[in-house]
């Protein structure tokens, strides 16, 4: 059984600068989403126990051929890439059929993992959309995954408790960011990442009938404004009083 991990190429968030309330993306190197890396680590851990191959699936512009080396260094055995410039600005309605079609072309997939949301837009739709297109069961917000024969036992961590589910394979699972801590790759894993097998397809080769682009446009993306109260205190007593009157303690 093989495990596919869908990973999104996003701008390296640590290197983005903000100018005039807009992110400057020019010259920012591409990276893979943080939670996607948790999904990959979950897949590699399962593979180490159960065998099979971990295949990283990514759709993006041609840069993704380089970006995916990060996943290949971190333990993926192969990459399956769909390349087209338009994919970068596409929303879930476009990407889901692309990923679903790609998964159909990969042999013996038992599990398809996603991060619970991508590192940039965090729309969190793709897992469900792809599961629907494939007709597979889907489980979200997994904090633990175990394989038992033709099923997976999945713990979902919810606000008020843990839910344990049994799901038939093949299945789609989206994982939480705290499911694990991705390992640090070794020097040769990094240096040899580029030599691992890669299947690269152009978008046309999937022969899909895709909706027109773009269906959703981001108008603004800003952190909420916080106004600090700037209360000055002269003593610990005053501080305690201030905290009390603000309802903090």
């Amino acid at each position, binding site marked *: 059984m093989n495990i596919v991990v869908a990973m999104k190429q996003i701008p390296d968030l640590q290197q983005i600068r903000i100018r005039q309330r807009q992110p400057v993306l020019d010259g920012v*190197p591409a990276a893979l989403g943080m939670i996607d890396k948790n999904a990959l680590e979950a897949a590699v851990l399962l593979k180490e126990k159960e065998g099979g191959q971990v295949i990283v699936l990514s759709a993006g512009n041609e840069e993704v051929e*380089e*970006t995916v*080396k*990060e996943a290949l*260094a971190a333990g993926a055995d192969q990459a399956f890439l769909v390349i087209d410039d338009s994919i970068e600005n596409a929303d879930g309605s476009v990407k889901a059929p692309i990923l679903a079609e790609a998964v159909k072309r990969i042999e013996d997939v038992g599990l398809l993992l996603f991060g619970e949301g991508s590192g940039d837009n965090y729309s969190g739709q793709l897992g469900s959309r792809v599961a629907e297109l494939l007709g597979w069961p889907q489980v979200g917000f997994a904090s633990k995954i175990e394989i038992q024969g033709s099923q997976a036992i999945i713990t979902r961590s919810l606000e008020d408790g843990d839910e344990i589910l049994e799901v038939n394979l093949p299945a789609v699972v989206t994982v939480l960011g705290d499911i694990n801590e991705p390992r*640090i*790759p*070794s*020097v*040769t894993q*990094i*240096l040899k*990442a*580029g030599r691992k097998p890669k299947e690269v397809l152009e978008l046309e080769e999937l022969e899909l009938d895709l909706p027109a682009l773009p269906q959703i446009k981001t108008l603004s993306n800003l952190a909420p404004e916080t106004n600090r109260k700037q209360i000055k205190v002269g003593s610990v007593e005053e501080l305690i009083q201030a905290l009390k009157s603000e309802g903090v303690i």
Partner: protein
Amino acid sequence: MNFELSKEQSLLQAMARDFAEKRLEPIARQIDEENQIPAEILAEMGELELFGIPIGEEYGGAAGGYDGYVLVMEQIARISGGVAMTLAAHTLGLGALDKFGTEEQKQKYLPDACKGKTIASFAFTEPGTGSDPKQLTSTAVKEGDYYILNGTKRFISNANHPGPCVIFARESESQEVTAFIVDKWCEGYSISEPWAKIGMKGGVLTDVYMENIKVPAQNLLGQIGQGFPILLYGIALGKIGTSTAALGGTLAALEEALKYVKEKTHRGAPIAKFQAIQLKIADLKIKYETSRWLCYRLGWLANNIKDPAAFAAEAALAKAYCGDTVVEAAKIAMDAHGSYGLMKDYNIERILRDALIGPEIEGVSDMQKMIVAGSLLKR
């Protein structure tokens, strides 16, 4: 000309940064205070293959080149000078073994050293000489299939860790300086208490006592009398490590200063608004970038050495510059902190102590400048 890192190089850099921030940063002060690196840290560095980056895969190395080594060393030194010192001295020993060892010697010593199961040393300095091989007094006397080594080596890094040590001694018949591979902790090998040095603690420094150490003749490194070229070549490669350890210190100084001047306020506004502070920040950035490109280029040059003497001059130039610069940078960053910088609560206190090591090791800065001048004037 291409100044861009490849994807693999940026991943290597990110990996080392990640390791340094996650594993070393929480204990950097502890390493400094205890003058010891926890065994599990050294073991993890071994698993990540940080101990054999420039060594070929046929000898258990990672084949990442000296350019890869530089990228990793910078990130480690940014967080812990002591760990950087340990890695630099180890890689210095390995570089000499790799270049001058026989196939048999390399197969015997390199694989374990590349995995960090052993840690290498390189012992030239003696109580009577640091920069001048002519004054070397340790002796090697041939006895049957062995050489008997006697003498004292001063300030030897990693001498406490088991592993191979490249030791320079005067071969008695030829009276020539000759290099030997000694298994640390063999019979006749002992060390002093660690020197209580000012910085780069965790990089343990001891004297080595050789009392009738029996070294098998097959552990001769290179030829009898080849000690001097081995020393020069080895030390030239070693300066990649010390230059880059200094570079990491300069980066740390820049980052600490940047952080502090944005946090510390004067009449309600960060001190970063003062032009005098801004000039310091600019100076730090200039010092970092100049050191950085010298080190990256030195790593690249080391992968492509054609003329060892020309490389030695390049290495001396980088070492002189980066070694002196890290001290200047750490001092500027400390000035930006004012009195707070003197306190152990602030990293810059340790960064400055670590920095002071840079100009004084592997040949003091003046000696490096003499090599640079010599390469220009002897033509």
